[in-house]
């Protein structure tokens, strides 16, 4: 039981190369929107796993940590920085041979921004409503109680029988076109999660039992399918006119930032300096810096040179490469004293592209 989440945690810890704590890996998996976990994903090449197990509970993960320490899969130093051992690496390699991380998983893109949730919850409720309407049953208990989702579905729902019939044919056509292009297991998981007339969807546990897989793995299969579907729709909107309705409208990149960072971004565009924004918003300077680092990671082409000179960036990259580390403190010791942590964090966001 729970072997898969063991494997995922070890996989992330392996990529962190002893430079993060155990809970850094946990925060990445549950999709905690802190400055730290936003940077860690891209920095260590595990961005696809951002927020892909949102239901993991902290007390449960504490227990896993104890077990891993006991089994000798990981070791922690005095600062609780966690390193994987040879046993640990063997264990997660073995796990991955059987159940690899789904290729199309893109948590950093679709879970972070809430696009996957937006799409899936609307589709599931719309589908249930359409299914009941097609069977002339209008008194069903909705599968989603959220008012925003319900209002959205009501607004987009076809009013008459004819419209409903058109929608049913079109949705079926588009979904089956997509599902035929992926493997059967993921198509099964995706469709069995849907509810409709005389069909109640199945939980990840139940699907795991049916297919003899870990529930977490089933959840990753589902999410990777949702990510791939949104991606496919984006690339060919003309072929997925019905499904395109469920995709979250892109409002100038704003959805990829946390709400607070978004406000900071607007102030920056209006030409305010960091200290002015901090004063205006009644926040600490360091919080505003966190927002800017977030933008550096989340927004393509974000100009970090406005905050750190190219010379300084180069010095930082060099130190990071020489020391083979992404730990700020270690880098700081190697570079000119007048370069601050903010500059280091910004520069690290571009290290592989620079």
């Amino acid at each position, binding site marked *: 039981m729970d072997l898969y989440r063991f494997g995922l945690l070890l996989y992330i810890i392996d990529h962190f190369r002893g430079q993060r704590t155990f809970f850094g890996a946990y925060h990445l998996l549950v999709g905690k929107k802190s400055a730290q976990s936003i940077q860690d994903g891209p920095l260590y090449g595990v961005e696809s796993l951002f927020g892909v197990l949102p239901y993991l509970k902290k007390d449960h993960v504490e227990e896993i940590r104890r077990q891993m320490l006991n089994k000798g899969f990981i070791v922690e130093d005095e600062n609780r920085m966690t390193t994987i051992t040879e046993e640990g690496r063997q264990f997660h390699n073995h796990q991955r041979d059987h159940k690899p991380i789904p290729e199309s998983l893109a948590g950093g893109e679709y879970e972070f921004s809430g696009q996957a949730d937006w799409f899936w919850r609307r589709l599931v409720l719309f589908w249930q409503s359409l*299914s009941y309407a097609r069977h002339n049953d209008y008194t069903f208990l909705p599968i989603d109680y959220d008012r925003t989702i319900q209002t959205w579905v009501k607004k987009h729902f076809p009013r008459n029988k004819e419209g409903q019939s058109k929608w049913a044919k079109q949705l079926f056509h588009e979904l089956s076109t997509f599902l035929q292009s992926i493997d059967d297991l993921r198509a099964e998981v995706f*469709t069995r999660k849907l509810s409709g007339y005389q069909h109640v969807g199945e939980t990840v546990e139940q699907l795991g039992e049916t297919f003899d897989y870990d529930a977490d793995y089933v959840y990753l299969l589902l999410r990777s399918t949702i990510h791939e579907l949104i991606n496919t729709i984006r690339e060919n909107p003309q072929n997925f006119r019905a499904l395109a309705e469920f995709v979250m409208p892109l409002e100038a990149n704003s959805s990829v930032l946390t709400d607070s960072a978004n406000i900071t971004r607007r102030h920056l565009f209006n030409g305010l300096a960091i200290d002015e924004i901090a004063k205006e918003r009644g926040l600490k300077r360091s919080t505003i810096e966190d927002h800017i680092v977030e933008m550096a990671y989340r927004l393509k082409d974000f100009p970090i040179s406005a905050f750190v000179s190219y010379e300084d960036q180069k010095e930082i990259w060099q130190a990071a490469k020489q020391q083979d580390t992404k730990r700020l403190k270690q880098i700081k010791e190697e570079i000119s004293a007048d370069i601050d942590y903010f500059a280091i964090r910004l520069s690290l966001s571009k290290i592989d592209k620079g």
Partner: protein
Amino acid sequence: METFLKQKFGFSNFRPGQREIIADVLSRKNVLAVLPTGSGKTLCYQLPSHVFKGITVVVSPLLSLMDDQVQQMRSQGDKGVIAINSYLSNDEKRNILRTLPQYRMIFVSPEMLQLSNVLEALQRVTVSLFVVDEAHCISQWGHEFRTDYLRLGDIRKALHYPPCLALTATATKDIQQDIIEQLGLHEVHRHIYSVDRENIAYIQKHFHSHADKLEYLTRHLSEFPAPGIIYTSSRQLAEHIVYEAAKNQSYKIAYYHAGMLQEDRRLIQHQFLEGSLDFVVATNAFGMGVHKSDIRSVIHVQLPTRMEAYVQEVGRAGRDGKQSYAFLLHADGDDILPLQLIQREYPDQGIIDSVFATMKQQVVVTRSDLEQRCYEMGLEETQQKLLLFYLEKSHIIQNGRVDNVNPELLQQVKNELRQRETYRFQLFRQFEESLLSHKCLRAQILSYFEENLTKRLDPCCSRCGDIVIEREVYDKQNKKNRSKTWNQRLKAMLALGEEEEG
């Protein structure tokens, strides 16, 4: 009235008590009703809300139950119902408050009523009926005291004393009196019904160890009448039972707990309602809003902390009036967990000291400073609310601030909290004893609520004689859908014929 009932709700008869309560509510009297779980409390305000011109306000402390109720009413075509609770975003809340007059019935949590914009919106409309559900929460000595409930009396006043219906499933005489006083009800018409559910038979089994008990349950589960709910207090135990029981293929079982996806919890609820699950293993939150009338077994693997909770959980069986069963599986050492759960409700005395120890350095401390400090010290929200309530009651907090702390008063607060905890331990012991004695279980439960058993029932309980369990052959519909390919499944759901090609 019967014609109206048939027209609006599709029932031909009232259940015991409903007719009398509704008649009093309709003639705008203040009513206190004690009606057992599963006897149709909702109808007592739902029907009058259709008759009254103004709005019916229903205060309820259970957020998920509130949501379930509203969704069920709306799905039955009743769109005049809405809930105002912390699940709403600020925008949604503002929207609802602006359009308040278009609703007929408003469910609201007590916390929301403390917000001035919610109260003001209610003051602008005509409130014809003020319903207090779970009214026992208002009593400090009740089993589920909610500090937010204490202000309901003031809120009634602010709304110019609309007629009030106070509802609860269980309330001793003292608590009934407390409810009336706290709500400031005059000329109250009381409708008190027995907590006894005659169509439920009680069966108790004792085991020497916890392990024996679990083995018995998982081995013999197919002999328990389905559908059924199995109540446990911990997630680990729920998972263990499902894991063991799932080896038996003759029934379908699943668990329901907080460590699951919200989406999947709802799916379990729907599967259980629809009949494709035989048993759900759950912590006590499951089943409150589930309107399933044919639950045949409620099985307790662990005791709740109080008799009231036990009676409510058992009451989820047999709402259709047919013979149903309450199983109590008990082993030595089963008291440890409930006692721990009670302890967890009260703030640790050492933590209270540390909250105040750090305070001396600051000149003026506001109520929210204290809240913040409680949070930092790791107090849970319910513990913090309880502590602040006693601090206000003893005037350590005055007008939202603390000027200086009188050590004697603080000691008094600590004593009071300890007394409450001890009292709850005693209540648990009393509850445990009444279930584990050798007397008739039904009579024991009734005597806890100061009632006497007046007639002999057959079947009654495992102490009064052997109980032959009637089991219908459980119809497993919906299985057929599972064997389809994904393509066929999608078509079936959308009622598309074979000619549609993918």
